[in-house]
């Protein structure tokens, strides 16, 4: 009995870890969708690029002699967020801005093209094989009887929880309190009206892409440290999962993306633990279909009214 519940707790912890990173990526989808109503298909690739940049930054800084771990991680985070944001900004400038205002499908196809382009760009630049990095943060706390099954909360998992929590709080405060955040909300409410009232909507849209990409980079660094492995193809499936999380929570809603990410992560880890790890993707896509069927607005989303 104790063993079974410890096993359950372990799966819950694993699920919450993955889920909180899904939530970080999902925010990029949900913010962009909330403002310009398009699915930024290339967002998963931005996360993948964030992971690569983190690996490059960690290796480079170690070679330069930065040994103190918190400093190393902080520098890496800053570099990775900066470069990924530049990617997010550039992608919007090149691929989405010129097609904005047209048919939705055109923007989506452009985004798919961008996703394929970025994936192959990284493949050509860094090779298609897995790149592994030795884990920097080891150890953790174990619970339970020493002879039986032990549930472990590793330090890395704790760091992921804390980093996600801090980022989310920061973002929520930014959106709720700051001038720019207010402009963001205004633009997502009514872009034309916000423009008439003197908000530079183009700048706000760029900002949305930059924030989304920066959060994806945080997720990239955290998951890169957690898994220790990356390849150019991780972005596709992670992006899909994060999108599922965004839809699950209600696309356009930031708390919804957080909730959706956590639910999806837990569902996945439970599926792999009690059913079969091969079918965990099937279960999460099945969940997406069910949500869209029975509650298209998601858990926390507002129903969309179509005006003629």
């Amino acid at each position, binding site marked *: 009995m104790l063993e079974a519940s410890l096993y359950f707790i372990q799966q819950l912890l694993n699920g919450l870890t993955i889920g909180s990173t899904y939530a970080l990526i999902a925010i990029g989808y949900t913010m962009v969708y909330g403002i310009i109503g398009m*699915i930024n298909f290339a967002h998963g690739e931005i996360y993948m690029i964030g992971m*690569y*940049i983190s*690996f*490059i930054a*960690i*290796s*480079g800084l*170690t*070679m330069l002699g930065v040994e103190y771990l918190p400093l190393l991680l902080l520098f890496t985070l800053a570099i990775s967020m900066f*470069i990924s944001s*530049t*990617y997010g*900004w*550039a992608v919007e400038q*090149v*691929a989405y801005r010129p*097609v904005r205002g*047209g*048919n*939705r*499908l*055109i*923007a*989506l*196809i*452009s985004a*798919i*093209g*961008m*996703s*394929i*382009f970025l*994936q*192959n*760009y*990284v493949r*050509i*630049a*860094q*090779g298609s094989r897995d*790149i*592994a*990095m*030795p884990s920097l943060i080891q150890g953790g706390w174990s619970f339970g009887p020493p002879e039986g099954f032990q549930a472990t909360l590793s330090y890395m998992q704790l760091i992921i929880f804390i980093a996600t929590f801090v980022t989310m709080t920061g973002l929520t405060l930014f959106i709720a309190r700051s001038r720019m955040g207010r402009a963001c909300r205004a633009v997502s409410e009514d872009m034309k009206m916000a423009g008439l009232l003197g908000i530079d909507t183009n700048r706000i849209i760029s900002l949305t892409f930059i924030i989304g990409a920066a959060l994806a980079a945080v997720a990239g660094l955290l998951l890169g440290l957690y898994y220790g492995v990356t390849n150019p193809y991780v972005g596709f499936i992670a992006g*899909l999962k994060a*999108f*599922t999380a965004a*839809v699950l929570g209600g696309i356009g809603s930031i708390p919804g993306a957080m909730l959706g990410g956590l639910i999806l992560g837990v569902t996945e880890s439970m599926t792999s633990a009690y059913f079969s790890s*091969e*079918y965990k*993707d*099937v279960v999460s*896509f*099945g969940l997406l*279909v069910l949500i*869209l069927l029975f509650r*298209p607005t998601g858990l926390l989303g507002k129903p969309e009214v*179509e005006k*003629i």
Partner: protein
Amino acid sequence: MKEKFVPALIAGIVTLILAFPLLGLNLVADGLSLVIEGADAKTLRYIVFAALAVFLFQLFKEKLGGIVSSIPLPRKAYGQASVVSQAQRDKRERLFTIIVVALALIWPFFASRGNVDLATLVLIYVMLGLGLNIVVGLAGLLDLGYVAFYAVGAYSYALLHQYFGFSFWVCLPLAGLLAATFGFILGFPVLRLRGDYLAIVTLGFGEIIRILLNNWTHLTGGPNGIGNIPKPSLFGLEFGRRAKEEGNVPFHEFFGIDYSSSYKVVFLYLLALLLVLLTIFVIRRLTRMPVGRAWEALREDEIACRSLGLNRTVIKLSAFTLGASFAGFAGAFFSARQGFISPESFTFIESAIILAIVVLGGMGSQLGVILAAIAMTVLPELAREFQEYRMLMFGLMMVLMMVWRPQGLLPMKRRHMELAND
């Protein structure tokens, strides 16, 4: 000039920021740890060159634009050319079609084996493109999991043959039917969704099918796939050296000619051509029928259609199911041609390629889709040394196409009459 300089400089610097970390610093495993190696001088030079190019382009963008737009384009003069009547246009079109079909029929007997084989592959993509064209081009439903129906078709032939010994000709309609059923089952619940949700759900469905094929090992063979799928026969005449099934006669023995493996290749080509012609014919007819018109009307304005009393679920479902069935036919033919299938052939990239064919050709336009399928399949074969850059170019092309010419190379033209303008 001065106000342009700063944005251009920023664009150049951004290019450097984007390109340098990923291209200029390579991660290399050194024992257990990772180290960074600087790229060779050539790559670095390319990066600087790219940044300079972006800078200069941004600086002189408007001047360049002026030069490009000042080039006179050949334009159809209004009123001068005599108005071609619909009857005349139909006649020309028919003549053109007959010539093209005749050439396509005769050509393989004089061409090399490899080329005919490539042409067969092109025809499979033409068929897939035409099928997806119904869904995306005509009905305006973005389907990112089209390859799932292709996989269903391919696996239905392979499995029905493996377990029940059905022949290709029995399986071909069954494959179409099964794929259509899958399309129906998927479409029924999800077609109520708005465009971009639909895209993601179909993408998820495509992944689900691939994962199932990969993991349902005792039925599908998992990642090892299914081999020894027989080629189609011509009224019981087989194209192998010896007949595999009892009662069948090899083609060359029946006609008393020497065995040659190219008969099989040409036969497959002709079969594919036949299927493609059938597809074109069916779709052409459909677009002139009420249901075809309803597809396009629904694509243009859903709310208007509903207020005119069209049942959008039925219309969308018909497009989705029909599109799926063509993928099923193409899939059955694909597995017969390959003789071996595995889930590797049905990844998302395949869906993206088919979508790119439709988009590049011009959504809704049949001729455009055919030409795009030829271009997308033949060009990579011609440029084999650029194989590595194929997908890169392909993604870039999708973006550029959407930015510059979202309607495609040969956009669909409605049949219409023109009144003389004087």
